[in-house]
């Protein structure tokens, strides 16, 4: 589960200034069927659901994130626009995007597990195509989860 490692780096500034999220929170996989702006949206969605990003945390500026990922700034703007439309972030004075007020803590596990479902559905389809027994696939998934935790 690659997203586990996406959600760990957050820079905390002194005192009462807002936490500015480090650009390294984000990553982009090229060669994917998922457009880059959707990858960015999904990463923020997961980190908010998991509570790694909380109300008031600031997202990097469009320019900083575009620079650090080497992607077109329009793509970052598109992702931020979609997050704003979803109510996950709000635009603060000075154009910084911050995580919206209502996201103070992690979502219930039931909601978080829903976010995981599409990824596992894809994996399940591949398991069927490969004609692997379900038990064997589950063992592999468990092993991978444990490997990540050991890191």
């Amino acid at each position: 589960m690659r997203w586990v490692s996406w959600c760990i780096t957050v820079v905390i500034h002194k005192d009462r200034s807002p936490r500015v999220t480090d650009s390294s929170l984000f990553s982009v996989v090229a060669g994917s069927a998922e457009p880059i702006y959707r990858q960015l949206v999904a990463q923020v969605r997961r980190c908010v659901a998991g509570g790694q990003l909380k109300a008031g945390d600031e997202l990097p500026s469009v320019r900083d994130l575009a620079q650090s990922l080497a992607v077109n700034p329009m793509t970052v703007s598109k992702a931020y626009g979609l997050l704003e439309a979803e109510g996950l972030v709000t635009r603060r004075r000075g154009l910084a995007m911050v995580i919206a007020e209502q996201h103070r803590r992690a979502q219930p596990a039931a909601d978080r597990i829903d976010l995981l479902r599409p990824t596992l559905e894809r994996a399940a389809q591949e398991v069927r195509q490969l004609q692997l027994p379900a038990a064997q696939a589950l063992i592999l998934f468990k092993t991978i989860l444990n490997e990540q935790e050991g890191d």
Partner: protein
Amino acid sequence: MSSTRIDTGTPCVSLQGLRVAFGRQTVLDGLDWALPVGQVVGLLGRNGAGKTTLIETLLGLRDADAGRVVLFGQSALALDDDARARIGYVPQRSDLFEWMTADQLLAYFRSFYPRWNTAKVDGLLSRWDIARDKPIAKLSGGQQQRLSIIRALAHEPELLVLDEPVSSLDPAGRRDFLRELVDQVVDLRTTVVFSTHILSDLERVALDVAFLSGGNIALHATLDDLLESSVRLAGAPADVQGFVSEHQLDAITRQGAAGPIIVRRRGAGGVPATTPAVTVEPVTLEDLFMALTE
């Protein structure tokens, strides 16, 4: 963001009925294409599809047998100096004067342009680690390519045309180049045409992709839309055929005897889901490249 340029809505480049043949081999066959101002377009095509011919004709460096190229409202074959100064070009093979040093070369080119960003040139030369006082012939292939890119960016062109600009660069060099391109796009709203085989680079910076095949632009679309509207279908030919007409999908590839086909939905809305008879799978840019440049 200091942009003094005005978007008048007219395309930066327009090509109409372009035909170029070498002897009996037709390379461009009545090609029509237009690039709106401020777009970043990736030009994709197989080896020998005519990407370089298209780029050279677009820039007025090569005569067409038929058709018209209009750049900034002028015929590409009769550009005035002002229009020329608004174009930056990185050719596939670097055409640098190899006996000169980087400094001499840049000083020479500087004399042709009314605008020249010395700070940018100095910054890039040092960041990209290019020796200023060595003959260009002594620089590595990657360094020569970087120098060619610096030369093309120095006068802050409004139209930047790059023909395989990163073929000699390692992944770190390519990333540096992409970052520079990102900056250029943010600050200057440059129109960029960019041909490359490295799809992963293209995906990061190109909002639009154009596929050159059979002497024509087979498709020009927004990359995000294309990825979201195209799927691969697999199933018995009769089932797939029924699925395609039921959901009003357009075939991008011809259906073989049994193999899967790639289709694109017409208009907005979601793509249909898998049924017991037909499997629907997402596609990548590479899948589309293979399908559209056959």
